[in-house]
């Protein structure tokens, strides 16, 4: 039983590495799309899952990252400059978004981030001189890495996969450091955390900023993946989908985003057999999933362990009762 995580982990790694060369273009595209969302939801998982904040505006940063790359590349600059701008812009704007979080609580914060997302989306849609408005920006190229062209779909996929691994390692490092515990303390008991010298405001702002930066990286990669950017994928419904992915995967679990993004990106594709009903089935599946596993998919091991403990405790009680009866 204990080896199950290791086996499933190796299986997923194998699929991610070895399957794409055998897939058609659409399949490769889907895998790349999945990885992009893994990075984006890793950021949201940090803000929402580890630091306990409410953020329903994540897609705005996704969009800022995408437009950073699109606009700069259209002006003749390299993808890498666009990526750098994406990270910095999203970090700074994420910090700014954190400020309302210091003043308002939970549900109001959720709505504030919604409002922020809508505001950014409106700018994207209406400021044609910058973003091309609803016409968007097309012909976005792909980067080259150390002279190797990443134009091909398969090559770009492995690049995105590599970036996902890098971002994952960075997050692992972050969460293993004292910052990781500070975020968890902030989530689980901010009042106690404060009385222990933890700078609540600072860590709150950082959780938003770092989460946003991750979305910025994802957006940058997204721009070169789809090679045509327009405002629609960055509206509130996208933020809501990302939130759904984090919660379904398991908030506060490291691999939650991997699973949650799979559910959000790949599940609708598998449901296509249901044709016109596939989104209905998806919505229903989400409801059922939440009813069965409110803490997300990755809470399954913990629930099984709890059930086993309860069974063992019952058995122990029954045995003790039987002994007393004699």
């Amino acid at each position, binding site marked *: 039983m204990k080896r199950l995580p290791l086996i499933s982990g190796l299986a997923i790694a194998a699929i991610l590495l070895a399957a794409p060369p055998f897939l058609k273009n659409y399949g490769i595209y889907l895998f790349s799309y999945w990885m992009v969302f893994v990075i984006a939801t890793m950021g949201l998982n940090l803000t929402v899952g580890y630091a306990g904040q409410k953020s329903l505006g994540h897609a705005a940063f996704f969009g800022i990252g995408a437009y950073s790359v699109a606009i700069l590349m259209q002006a003749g600059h390299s993808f890498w400059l666009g990526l750098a701008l994406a990270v910095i812009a999203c970090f700074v704007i994420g910090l700014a978004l954190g400020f309302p979080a210091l003043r308002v609580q939970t549900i109001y914060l959720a709505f504030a981030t919604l409002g922020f997302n809508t505001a950014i989306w409106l700018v994207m849609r209406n400021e044609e001189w910058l973003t091309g408005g609803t016409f968007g920006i097309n012909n976005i190229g792909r980067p080259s890495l150390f002279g190797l062209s990443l134009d091909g779909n398969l090559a770009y996929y492995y690049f995105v996969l590599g970036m996902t691994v890098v971002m994952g390692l960075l997050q692992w490092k972050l969460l293993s*450091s*004292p*910052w990781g*515990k500070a975020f968890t*303390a902030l989530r*689980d*008991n901010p009042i106690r955390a*404060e009385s222990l*010298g933890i*700078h609540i405001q600072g860590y709150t702002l950082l959780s938003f900023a770092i989460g946003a930066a991750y979305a910025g990286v994802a957006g940058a990669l997204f721009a070169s993946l789809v090679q045509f950017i327009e405002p629609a994928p960055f509206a509130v419904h996208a933020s809501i989908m990302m939130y759904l992915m984090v919660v379904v995967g398991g908030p506060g679990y490291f691999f939650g985003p991997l699973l949650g993004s799979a559910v959000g990106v790949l599940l609708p594709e598998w449901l296509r057999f249901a044709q016109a009903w596939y989104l209905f089935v998806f919505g229903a599946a989400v409801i059922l999933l939440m009813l069965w596993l409110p803490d997300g998919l990755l809470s399954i091991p913990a629930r099984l362990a709890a059930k086993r403990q309860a069974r063992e405790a019952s058995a122990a009680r029954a045995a003790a009762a039987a002994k007393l009866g004699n």
Partner: protein
Amino acid sequence: MIGPVLKVTDLRKAYGAIQAVGGVSFEVMPGEIFGVIGPNGSGKTTMFNSVLGQITPDAGKIELNGHDITHKSPQQLNQLGVGRTFQTLQVFGKMTVRDNLLVAAQEHQGSMWSRLFAPGDSGLGDRADALIDQFRIRHVAHKKAGELSYGQQKLVDIAMAFMSEPDLVLLDEPCAGVNPSLVGGISSLLKQLNQTRASGKKASSFVVIEHNMDFVMDLCHRILVMVEGQVLAVGTPDEIRGNKAVLDAYLGN
């Protein structure tokens, strides 16, 4: 001339028409265990929370080692060397016991930036292990704090307050809801912690709110009695036990 660790002068706090704390003044000397007792509604917790920055007092002054801390936040107070426990359990349920202790002091190690690159335990592993052994919770140290019994969580709660080696620790009803057999254990732990300190540091002082009279009389060097938001008496346990006004108002005939 060693001044008091904590000096509260004419502290006042009202909630609407109710004067919860109506002019309370006292001093706590270094190394002292200072008890605060009084009937429910006497303003003990309000006074406590004012000292700890959780509530803003209407008037009065609070000084820590001579520095004015009246309007400082709980986070600033902790950095200045004040620790506290809460009346209701406040551990981090999803973290292990050991992690609870580590996080309780990690913000005192280095700066925010340096902590990003520090090892997971911020170099506090030994200190945490020492406290775990002292509190005799070694057998549950690896478990999630939320899975422990109430009494065990209480011990973790108290241990957390001491991790950052504060000069002043405020304990809000450390025996509340605790099995009577554990009360003695908590009392001897607090006495140990009061006496042992890393060399070079001055002795730590405690302020303890409690209702358990035996516990308070046995543990504290001096006791303050609060009634209806005012100080009724201050003195050693013997003096308080013999104080007629206190007996009438609180301890019963």
